[in-house]
């Protein structure tokens, strides 16, 4: 079984875009260890030839690919934390 150390948890937090404090990182590593220990019961099952199940549907049904305008431009922007000239505004993306 994989050893969950704080270093691995920091890597996971980076992937998840969460800036965790040291205390949070440590506590979450502990929780993750406990949960994965519990989930190890799945390793006892013989899964040879068993297909994975991703959905319980009978298959998806798609509507025709036609553009509709359910939301106005203004509605789409009404919850934006920051906007300019009808666009979402974000902090600097590259370098600094």
């Amino acid at each position, binding site marked *: 079984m994989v050893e969950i150390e704080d270093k691995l948890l920091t890597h996971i937090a980076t992937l998840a875009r969460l800036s965790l404090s040291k205390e*949070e990182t440590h506590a979450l590593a502990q929780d*993750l260890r406990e949960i994965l220990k519990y*989930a190890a019961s799945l390793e006892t099952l013989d899964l040879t030839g068993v297909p994975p199940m991703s959905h319980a549907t009978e298959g998806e049904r798609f*509507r025709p690919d036609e553009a509709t305008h359910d939301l106005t431009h203004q509605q789409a922007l009404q919850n934006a*934390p920051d906007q300019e000239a009808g666009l979402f505004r974000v902090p600097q*993306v590259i370098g600094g």
Partner: protein
Amino acid sequence: MSGLTSMGVSELAAAIKGKKASASEVVDAHLARISEKDGSIGAFLARADETACGEAKEIDARLARGEDPGPLAGVPIAIKDAIHVKGLATTCGSKILKKFATPYDATVIRRLKSAGAIVLGKLNMDEFAMGSSNENSAFGPVRNPWDLTRVPGGSSGGSAAAVCAGFAAMTLGSDTGGSIRQPAAFCGVVGLKPTYGRVSRYGLVAFASSLDQIGPLTHSCADAALSLSVIAGQDVHDATSSPRPLDDYAAAVGQPTKGLRVGVPRDFLKTGVDAFVMAEFDRTIAALKSDGASIVDVSLKNAPHAIATYYLVATAEASSNLARFDGVRYGLRTDSATSRATLKDMYGETRDQGFGPEVKRRIILGTFVLSSGYYDAYYLRAQKVRTLIRRDFEKAFESCDVIATPTTPSPAFKLGEKTANPLEMYLADVFTVPANLAGLPGISVPCGFSAGLPVGLQFVGPAFAETAILRAGSAVERLSDASARRPAL
């Protein structure tokens, strides 16, 4: 007309249509009760008094003109705060969505409004529907109307408490691993999780998209049937909603017990169930047998692996779904203290500030099981076990019409009792999670009481066999007075 707030959906709709009470009287009575009693319960996060009163007047005017405003004309309902109602905020119980103004109605809301139902407000919940006690809400806990020191269950804790307390005749919840059925059991009301695909998810904030389903919480199976007939059906906005025609759900309620084959997975119930809950369950099964049901032994041998499977599958989907909360298009944005902060810094700080501990725990777990090097060992393995769990159900339904279990291993627990141990909290959903993994319909019906606390019995049926579980649920209602009891508030 007295007792309006203790009446169910069908009874209120009939009273309003029969002019025994006006929609305005009904709405006023419920709003007054919320004002009087919700301070000690905490079910509502937002109220819509003004629009509700306006809509009630309109229903009354339409009735006066001889029009038919629909099967739920004037019936007061309230909605879990994960489902969009235009004009009201959708917070999902989270700081990250605190100020989110909803620009459209979910499909279920559109259908309920067309049927004449009146939305009274939005209901408290565990943050992003992650929890089994409602203690993970960023806006405070909900208390169980039967005992204010206990939890109402979760994640639809506000939805269950609101029906139980007489604040609304019907509420909507969402169920990813038991979030309708478990709180329904804890609060002594009926909670129905339809088959995956029976009800459109358009306008429900996604937690785990292959498991989420919207459903009603009510006082009776008849009310659940009527509510389902309004909200169910294919929707162009949800590609997973089924084109299958609806069944006559109302007609299933009250059908005779004779001939009903009830499967009981005894092996699955051997460990971890409270003795009083087990006694109420066994008493109800014996009563069903006396009433003409045949009781069949069935095996769900992989069901004990359902919780582990669920926490790998649901968190993986959640980590992906919750990536959208990044401070760009809506919700909270935390500005960095440094002027050289980049977009990446803003993402990280916003999400760290905006999400509560349980949501972060699940995002981390989900990100881990999907990450390079661990995907096969955890996520893919869990998806294969999911197949085994579904196959167990398919096999079991060859010999029975419904499968019965207690809804929960114990009655409502105390506030704070399980917050220190996430795994222990997860195990509160041991009997409800398998139906979500297999995509099957499930219902929790009150079957008894243990030391003054309600006990729920769950029926799970084959895919799209809502009629079977409603029939079985209504049989339990006839054999027990548990559904008729109301807490003294």
